[in-house]
């Protein structure tokens, strides 16, 4: 059962990711990106991370992608002429392909047998809102506070840059 879901989701994710980088129209690109992120969220549920899956949909697919679409439509961006250096494009694909090969070789060489499932069975309630929340506000309290400053910098930075008159 898991295998079927995995294969279907993988195909959707890979296809929509390819479309993100192949589509000429930025709106189509971003819509495919939303599809890719949604199906990744489904995969998170399979990996016992329902909370992160929910966050992924709400924050990533919801907020961030709306921001993307908003900017595209606000600026009324059409397709742009991306002609020019073909050699650069070929180079880009070659670099990415090489990376793919290297990673595949490395992953193959790792001593985890291909069909042993996972190392440990997850503890009860693993990945639920309650559990992740508890960990977040006890062990990972400090990173949480740093993240608040990071977001403060981003909010103020975005306003400073995008507002015409301060």
């Amino acid at each position, binding site marked *: 059962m898991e295998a079927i879901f995995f294969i279907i989701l993988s195909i959707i994710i890979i296809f929509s990711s390819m479309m993100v980088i192949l589509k000429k129209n930025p709106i189509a690109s971003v819509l495919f990106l939303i599809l890719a992120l949604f199906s990744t969220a489904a995969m998170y549920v399979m990996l016992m991370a329902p909370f992160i899956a929910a966050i992924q949909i709400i924050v990533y697919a919801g907020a961030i992608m709306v921001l993307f679409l908003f900017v595209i439509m606000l600026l009324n961006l059409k397709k742009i002429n991306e002609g020019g250096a073909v050699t650069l494009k070929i180079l880009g694909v070659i670099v990415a392909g090489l990376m793919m090969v290297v990673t595949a070789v490395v992953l193959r060489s790792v001593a985890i047998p291909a069909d042993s499932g996972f190392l440990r069975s997850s503890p009860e309630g693993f990945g639920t809102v309650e559990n992740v929340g508890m960990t977040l506000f006890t062990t990972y309290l400090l990173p949480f506070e740093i993240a608040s400053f990071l977001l403060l910098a981003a909010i103020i*930075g975005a306003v400073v840059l995008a507002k015409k008159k301060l």
Partner: protein
Amino acid sequence: MNITYNLPAIGTQLVLGAGVILVLLADLLTGKKNRDVAYQTTLTVLVLAGIICVMKWGSAGAGFGGQVFGDGFASFFNLAFLAIAFLVVFNSPNYLKRNEIDHGEYYMLILIAVLGMTFMSSAGDLLIFFLGLETMSISLYVLAGFHKSRARSNESSLKYLLLGAFFTGFLLYGIALIYGQVGSTNLADITSYLAGSANPLGGYMGVGLALLLVGLLFKMAVVPFHFWSPDVYDGAPTPVTAFMSAAPKAAAFAAALRIFYDPAISLGLPWDKTLWIAAALTITLGNFAALAQSSIKRMLAYSSITHAGYLMIGLAAGNELGASGMLYYLFTYGFMNVGAFTIAWLVNRRGEGNYLLSDFAQLGSRNPVMALLMSIFMLSLTGIPPLAGFFGKLYVFSAGVKAGLIWLVVIAVLNSVVSVFYYLRVMVIMYMREEEGLKDLEKAPTVAITAILCGLVILLLGLFPGPLLDLARESVLSLL
């Protein structure tokens, strides 16, 4: 679940964090016309944080269950970040007013950037390091584009952001693979894994460490990940450039030392070779590109690439002398660079975007004090004794020799000789060249004070390098 938070371990960060909020409120309440309150509050916050940092020097221990360290190493770097930020902020209003970008947010973003750096230097967990790095980077992306009516400033921030986010992807992938191998992102766990493993680079670890290093090398602007830095430095507002060339680089090296420095663990041959080649390329390429520049800002940008290469020797040597030499080097390098950039924008008379070396013509007779200070900075960057720059190089190079990197040190020394040419060219222009139609420099007391302070620090640390080096050595020992 009980964890001891041990708040004194992040005393400096607490002051900075409170300061960010304070500056935000102060600027909001005092209205648009008057930025002085935000300026003064920022300086006060930086001084206060410095006092806390010195008071708690190295005695605070670990906090938040080993996620942060308030050890001597963190204190040393935090003090350096605070000092650089103080000098940059101190002479900023002049520049900001001249370019009509005098907004209170500038000060706040600098404080947040410093906050991020302090977390990088004191991180005991890759999560803290990552968040510190991103906090710093996001503030810097905005600061680089702060002069938004200028296309160059915008271009600088766009390049910085796109490349920075791209390399963040690699860095994060590296952390993910390390986490996958060790099962934890805590540095102590990772170190004990590496020490206990027969094949430390096996599994996901080798690729993970390499990708993490790529992310860090990008922030340090080391060849082949240097290509962003001249453009970003050139386009950014000059005080921001001064800040960017000194502080984030120090933060990246601090994080690299925290993560990779442990003489007990040898990662083996491919690792050493990579650092060796990166260092040699960085030094040579930065040097020869700097030779060709006619803009002082770009020249200093390439020179900062070269200096990152010299610092890489300390990292490649991986011994105690190398690490403490790097600390000494980074501390003094900050003052040289801030001083040089400060004088560069004071002297500049063609407006932003045209920082020509020829602006320095006759500075020797127009303003002898500034010319003298600029000479000190240039000589110190070259590495002429008895200035601080000389001892930084000396320690790092001798660490290289001690670690058997003879050829690398030979390359570095030869390059230092080449660098004499472009550093001294500035002095030649200042004292020898005649040029028509030069105006007197504008009176800018804060700029003069900044430059004099930087000059004094370099002179004093050069004449008496002992105490700072001892401090650096103690700080490195506190790492283990």
